[in-house]
């Protein structure tokens, strides 16, 4: 093992959340495959041919961290489960016009401050730096988030309808989407992700 770069980029909570959701969906699929093969094996013990492979089960350590972390991120005190890709993109785009540091922006996206006090905790010297912008920032944080928290299910459906918009069905947790907003140092990795939003539009400007 060799470490190339210890801190290549920051990830927002939502990006990790969607990564885990994606992993879970994949594992569910695999588990179904395993169940199916087990059933087959029980019925008749036949030679399955040279290319037959037994699917492996997910190892325990992966499962542990996944379940515990999802539990943490689904906590009612964190906004992560109520966020959507669109909301994160909207928020980062909106925060661009304020002179916030990268760390402050990341924390605003992660914690979605609901009150002046919560914002005060995150932003250093808030009174002097953002005398008049505080209410605007709080309003911006609320905008897309509130939409989903009112009636999560209903909002989720409309959100889905908006995004998919008669195109072929896509995995809503698909791939690296949100990472584009916060990650700057990297080119896209070689994977089969199909951007569902217009990424150029959503991308943060290169510093």
């Amino acid at each position, binding site marked *: 093992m060799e470490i190339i770069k210890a801190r290549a980029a920051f990830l927002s909570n939502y990006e990790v959340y969607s990564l885990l959701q994606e992993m879970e969906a994949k594992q569910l699929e695999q588990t179904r495959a395993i169940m199916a093969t087990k059933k087959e094996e029980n019925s008749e013990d036949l030679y399955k041919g040279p290319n037959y492979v037994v699917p*492996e089960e997910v190892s325990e350590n992966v499962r542990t961290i996944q379940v515990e972390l999802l539990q943490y991120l689904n906590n009612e005190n964190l906004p992560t489960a109520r966020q959507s890709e669109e909301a994160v993109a909207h928020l980062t785009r909106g925060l661009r016009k304020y002179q916030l540091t990268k*760390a402050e922006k990341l924390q605003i996206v992660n914690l979605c401050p609901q009150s002046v006090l919560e914002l005060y905790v995150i932003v250093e010297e808030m009174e002097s730096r953002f005398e008049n912008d505080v209410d605007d920032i709080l309003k911006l944080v609320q905008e897309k988030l509130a939409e989903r928290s009112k009636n999560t299910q209903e909002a989720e459906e409309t959100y889905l309808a908006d995004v998919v918009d008669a195109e072929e069905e896509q995995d809503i947790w698909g791939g690296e989407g949100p990472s584009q907003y916060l990650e700057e140092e990297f080119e896209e990795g070689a994977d089969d992700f199909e951007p569902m939003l217009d990424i150029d539009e959503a991308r943060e400007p290169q510093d």
Partner: protein
Amino acid sequence: MFILTEIRDTVALQPHTFGFEPTEVIARELNKKYANRILQDIGLVISVFDLTKCGEGKVRYGDGCLWYKVEFRLAVFRPFISEVLIGKVKSQDEDGIRVTLTFFDEVHIDKSQLPAPCAFDSSRQKFFWAAQMEPDTKRTELMDSPFQERLYIELDAPIRFRVEGDEFYDDEPGPPKAAQGAKYDLTVSKRPPYRIFASIAGQGMGPLEWWAGVGQADEQNNEQMDE
């Protein structure tokens, strides 16, 4: 809270996995090796984020495996200094408070990092903050304060804290020395490999219920001032 770390490693794929898509099996093998483990000076690994580079699989003399050289990125839990996080109170004693994040519970708040004036009520085994008193009040005076004025830190209460620092500790015993033989020193207390030191001193920090509604009041005041 989370970062990406780039790592290079060599992975062996067992022959029975040759039928699958190699990248998926590689990712699974890497997850098996790294997930939920602490890397020294890196942090707690969540899982593989993606593979960035992958060489050709090679067969070595002696086994039937395909060996791949891969470069990949890991999603890692490593909050930066001064980051604000939300956790739950796990336990408390005279020395301080321990906070859990469900998946990670080595967050320590030293008693010096509590809002002043603060004291440990040993009959209830809880810290309390006497917000009404002067910051340099003595402990004996604090213990005489009326119960209604004390803000206790309850177990399992959601709590907001600021990361002040972290520490890694390598617990690898190293190769045994021949002179000592195979002996285990059980007297040495086990230290966790990764600890976070946090603070809840300051406005807006500490149990969420302490501050519930305070921000809203501020907001209203601001609005009134605007008018």
